[in-house]
């Protein structure tokens, strides 16, 4: 099942070469022919096209991804970023607020919502989102406990 989708994902993971993006895109396109309602494949194609700096081509794929799966946070975020790039901040904010509702711990959703608020001149809302990001970015409690215990009171030595 979903063989082309899995092949596409595997290709993306195996190399950093630009040509691999095109190969992966072909696999996702093949998957779409078999499963035209596959929102994730649409999203992956959109992401690859964005990476290839083809935002105009990416847009329709992301639109379809969101249309087919309105609660797909990554697709909402990606499409919202395109809206924000076009200065359509109200649209972007609507999608990002929905993404935050769906995934309250999604840093990307909060971050892009913060920027959208900022760019729309909604400073207080941007600050609220920043506070959420600060909370999410905080390193885990106790991350350094063992090391600090070892350091104790003494100054590190050369």
């Amino acid at each position: 099942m979903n063989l082309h989708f899995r092949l596409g994902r595997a290709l993306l993971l195996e190399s950093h070469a630009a040509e691999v993006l095109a190969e992966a895109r072909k696999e996702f396109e093949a998957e779409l022919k078999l499963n035209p309602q596959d929102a994730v494949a649409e999203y992956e194609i959109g992401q690859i096209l964005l990476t290839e700096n083809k935002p105009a081509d990416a847009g329709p794929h992301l639109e379809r991804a969101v249309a087919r799966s309105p609660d797909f946070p990554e697709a909402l975020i990606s499409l919202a970023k395109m809206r924000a790039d076009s200065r359509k901040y109200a649209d972007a904010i609507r999608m990002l607020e929905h993404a935050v509702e769906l995934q309250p711990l999604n840093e990307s959703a909060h971050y892009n919502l913060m920027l959208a608020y900022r760019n729309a001149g909604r400073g207080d809302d941007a600050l609220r989102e920043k506070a959420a990001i600060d909370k999410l970015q905080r390193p885990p409690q106790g991350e350094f406990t063992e090391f600090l215990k070892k350091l104790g009171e003494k100054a590190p030595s050369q």
Partner: protein
Amino acid sequence: MKRLAALVAAGVFAAQDPHLPDFQNVAAQAGLTEAFPNGGTESKKFIVETTGSGAAFIDYNNDGLPDIFLVSGSGGTNRLYRNDGNGRFTDVTKETGLASSGWGQGVCAGDFDNDGFTDVLVTYWGGLKLYRSVAGRRFEDVTRRAHLKQDRVRYNTGCAFLDYDNDGKLDIFVANYVKFDFATTPAPGANPYCWYRDLAVNCGPRGLPFDRNILYHNNGDGTFSDVSEASGVSKPDQSYCLGVLPGDFNGDGRTDIYVACDQTPSLLYINRGDGTFSEEAVLRGAAFDENGKAMSGMGVTSGDYDGDGRPDIFRSNFSDERETLYRNRGPAEFDDVSLAAGMAHNTRFVGWGCGFFDFDNDGCKDLLLVNGHVFPEVERLKIDIHYKDRAILYHNNGKGSFTDVSERAGAGILERHAARGAAFADYDNDGSLEVLINNQNEAPSLLKSTRQPEGNWVILKLEGATSNRSAIGARIHLTAGGRTQIDEVRSGGSYLSQNDLRLHFGLGGAAKIDRLEIAWPSGTRQTERELEVNRVIRIREAVQTSSH
């Protein structure tokens, strides 16, 4: 002849474009043959082996020819090479009093005592060294006298001289990486922070404690005071800080500070103008990538790549991350435009030193970054990520985007090294910029193009009078041929490195500079008109003389 045959076999000449530079590594011919040790070459047990070291172009003897300073890790010495003016450099480390030992990290330059000679600060894991130039003949270590002896071992990394309070005296900013200690740091593989793709590697920075950055205020009597707490610089204490870049990012005439940070949010200290800073990188869009993820920021540079009159920021990052280009939408609010600018496809490289520079003198800043992984062990994986790797050269298309021309710009770009610091200067004053690169455990690279760019150019050497003598913080608006360019005299930048303090501008076909406006840190605005091109122009605050 053998070399020529090798280059042809490598397809270097076949791929050449006459409009692109032909960068060759001329380090050996220039006399830069000493290797600079920096920990293990097959494996690295501790993080301190991974982060060094910086490179600098500094005209220490005021002869108008940028000299070379390179920082060494443990087992070697920092070295100063005098520019002999004939394409060769002579090692003058001993006679200038700069022989050293220890884990050298970064270097920055500025005339802190305003005596007309450029002084040098070197950062170490372990402390700082402030070298005061004695009439451009030798240097004296004034660290203790200047009150810069630190009270404990610190992992100092990037540094910069800056006049944050515009009092005419250069202060010092020093970034700190982690709290690190050989005796107590866990061994490779000891905990989840000591692994990379199934390889046991040196631990950190995650898992090692944060430290704070430091701001030293110049008291004007040869001493400095630590004002980190009072200025607010020490407040963000949850970032692993490396590259430092001062600049007036919001155009208010005061120097702000950007700090590239590893695996943690990068920092943007906005100067409030009352001796304090407010760290605002997240809200201003310059802390993360476009997804709100902290990158492994290493080096940082600034330039107005899109010609809108605002300084933009580029930051080099780790492998599997995109380089980050932040467009300044003004005032100091940034958008991550890496993808749109055509930059984000080089994700297999770990980037370090970087710089905007106009290699073809067309008036648009291009960009070079140098690379090399932190873990030599990565070679065991047999993947497309390498410990030693080539540089990346982006050509500015003049329309807000770049083209990767790395494969077509000469063999020097394609040489593989574990590169770290990179500094930029026109060391022979011929109008085309050269690049100095500090390579771990190897001799440095000195990239020089064999092809002279077609465009006209000018180099500005500024000297403050009321402002600090190095003119650090002076901001330029240069108009020629219908195009206005901006730049700023900066200390620090790139990765733990120092560019020539003179500013180079490519001018395309413009046969003269119509207008040159200098906003000095003192607040003085100075305008020069109808200046000639293809020369070095010296401008003293409110006084101008011309050479060449």
